[in-house]
């Protein structure tokens, strides 16, 4: 793996990579690391059309670099740059509405949730081989909701996916080099929606709620059937891409959606399988946990300690998370979107200060926004986040 060659600040005693490794292991680094999840924000900061940004890789690359030059530095490059719409849909398994296509030129991608998976698809999953189940399932489903895959059929979809991945690899190699030369570490080599969350979105809220009451066991078994293949694909792609971290999206697993009982019985076995395989491969899972996860902490504590990053979005009380699971996972977050859009730099500074003092105490913490930084965040508020790690972040 290529090592960053440069320190971020003069005062730093570690590289970004060393700092990240230290906090994942719950150690105390030289300073709190910072990740800025700017995918939605960058085109608006730079004044370019969102429709160009999401479809033209070079436009994306220029926008992201400009934002870094205007607002940086930070430690972790959040690399959400889907070169191929097909691959974007394949990993997220959501019908995405794109600017310049289904949406006006000047708004960012949104999700159109509808029922594209049928109850009998759970049964089909159970007939699939453990080794390829997740990949085959995704390839089958994607033809039902992604424009680029529609009508592709079971044979024609594979070369399309292969070509998409190759383009992604070639683009990322070019894109990451610039950030790595500036000392940054790349956040992830692969990202995907976890199996249970895919079911929740693919079935849509009402039918999936019915499934939870009428056929809970098949959900658990289907999610578990997809888990090994999910993990192995993630490991393979992260290796090919060249960043040993896998971002696992769990948009629908929090207590804002399901009960802790359902989490423990239906979701956790699959999550554990995936997370342990990724760790065994020498990689770091980043659990992207939207919603309120407070009641799931007790079960999450069963996952291997000092190996995982837990990304919280502001709906979970991160200060409580520090007390209840901060000795098991590295916490990542969580400046609220509302504060970044409507608050003042002073408010952002105060909140970051509190995060660093309380959640960052003793290490095991990465400062970031709660989920994506909104497109309409004030640049002065983002600058306040960047400055906060310098002002308060050194141990």
């Amino acid at each position: 793996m290529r090592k960053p060659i440069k320190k971020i600040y003069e005062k730093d005693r570690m590289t970004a990579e060393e700092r990240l490794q230290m906090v994942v292991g719950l150690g105390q680094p030289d300073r709190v690391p910072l990740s800025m999840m700017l995918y939605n924000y960058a085109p608006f900061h730079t004044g370019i059309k969102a429709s160009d940004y999401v479809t033209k890789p070079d436009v994306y690359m220029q926008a992201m670099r400009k934002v870094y030059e205007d607002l940086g530095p930070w430690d972790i490059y959040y690399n959400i740059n889907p070169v191929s719409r097909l691959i974007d849909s394949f990993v997220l398994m959501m019908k995405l509405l794109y600017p310049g296509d289904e949406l006006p030129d000047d708004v960012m991608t949104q999700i159109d949730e509808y029922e594209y998976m049928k109850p009998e698809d759970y049964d089909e999953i159970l007939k699939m081989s453990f080794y390829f189940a997740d990949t085959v399932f995704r390839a089958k489903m994607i033809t039902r909701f992604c424009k680029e895959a529609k009508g592709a059929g079971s044979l024609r979809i594979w070369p399309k996916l292969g070509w998409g991945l190759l383009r992604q690899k070639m683009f990322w190699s070019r894109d990451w080099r610039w950030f790595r030369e500036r000392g940054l570490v790349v956040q992830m080599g692969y990202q995907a929606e976890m199996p249970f969350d895919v079911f929740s979105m693919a079935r849509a809220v009402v039918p999936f709620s019915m499934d939870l009451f009428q056929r809970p066991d098949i959900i658990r078994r289907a999610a578990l059937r997809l888990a090994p293949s999910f993990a192995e694909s993630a490991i393979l792609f992260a290796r090919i891409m060249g960043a040993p971290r896998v971002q696992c999206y769990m948009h629908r697993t929090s207590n804002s959606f399901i009960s802790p009982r359902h989490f423990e019985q239906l979701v956790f076995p699959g999550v554990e399988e995936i997370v342990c395989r990724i760790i065994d491969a020498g990689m770091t899972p980043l659990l992207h946990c939207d919603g309120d996860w407070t009641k799931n902490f007790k079960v999450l504590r069963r996952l291997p300690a000092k190996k995982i990053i837990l990304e919280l979005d502001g709906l979970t009380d991160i200060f409580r998370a520090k007390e209840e699971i901060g000795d098991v996972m590295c916490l990542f977050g969580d400046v609220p979107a509302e504060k970044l859009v409507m608050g003042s730099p002073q408010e952002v500074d105060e909140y970051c200060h509190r995060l660093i003092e309380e959640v960052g105490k003793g290490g095991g913490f990465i400062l970031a926004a709660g989920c994506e930084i909104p497109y309409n965040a004030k640049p002065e508020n983002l600058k306040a986040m960047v400055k906060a790690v310098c002002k308060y972040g050194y141990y």
Partner: protein
Amino acid sequence: METEKEVGMKGFRDAFQAFQIDSIEKEVDKILSSGVAPQEILNECQKRMEEIGTKFEAGEYFLPELVMAGEIFKKVNAKIKPLMTSGRKEAIGKIVLGTPKGDLHNLGKDIFGILAEASGFDIYDLGVDVPPEAFIRKLEETGAPILGISVLLTSAFSSLQEIVRLLEEKGMRDRVSIIVGGGVTTRDMIGRFKIDAQTRDAYEGVRIAQSFIIHREEA
């Protein structure tokens, strides 16, 4: 000994509480044929919804239970509404509801709408990506004292500001209470956006709407 009506109501109640959506219409047919009035069925539905809401607030129930209860309520309501030619209880209040321009999400809005309807409100749901002017027009047309706005993306913030500005400009702000809900909302928004209430919990939203009505009646 239990009467046919009592047995039927018990069957209906049990099916509702067990979220047996597939058999609920059959249960409604049974109790209707035993002579139970549609209004009584609606009252029973409201009691069940209230009970489910209490369990949700206590952390015993989660979103799937609310969704199922809402779907059951919708099915029952659709079946008995045409039969309620007279004697329907007057609504406790009117709510204009929608997701503002810039945001296409409807889940939170829909759940709130169903819970509020089950609690006796008349709901005027404008859907998603609603322009500020459309909210104002509907408030004028219905005279609704409550505006419910669901927000999942910060892209809807500017629409929200515009809605408040238009209400002030038209001199309607004092007669309309605004409640904003959704994952991206925070308590800080009450002061920042000059709204009346904020919640991330659909059931709490209904309680707040009820309190708005009580305050207006007392005033």
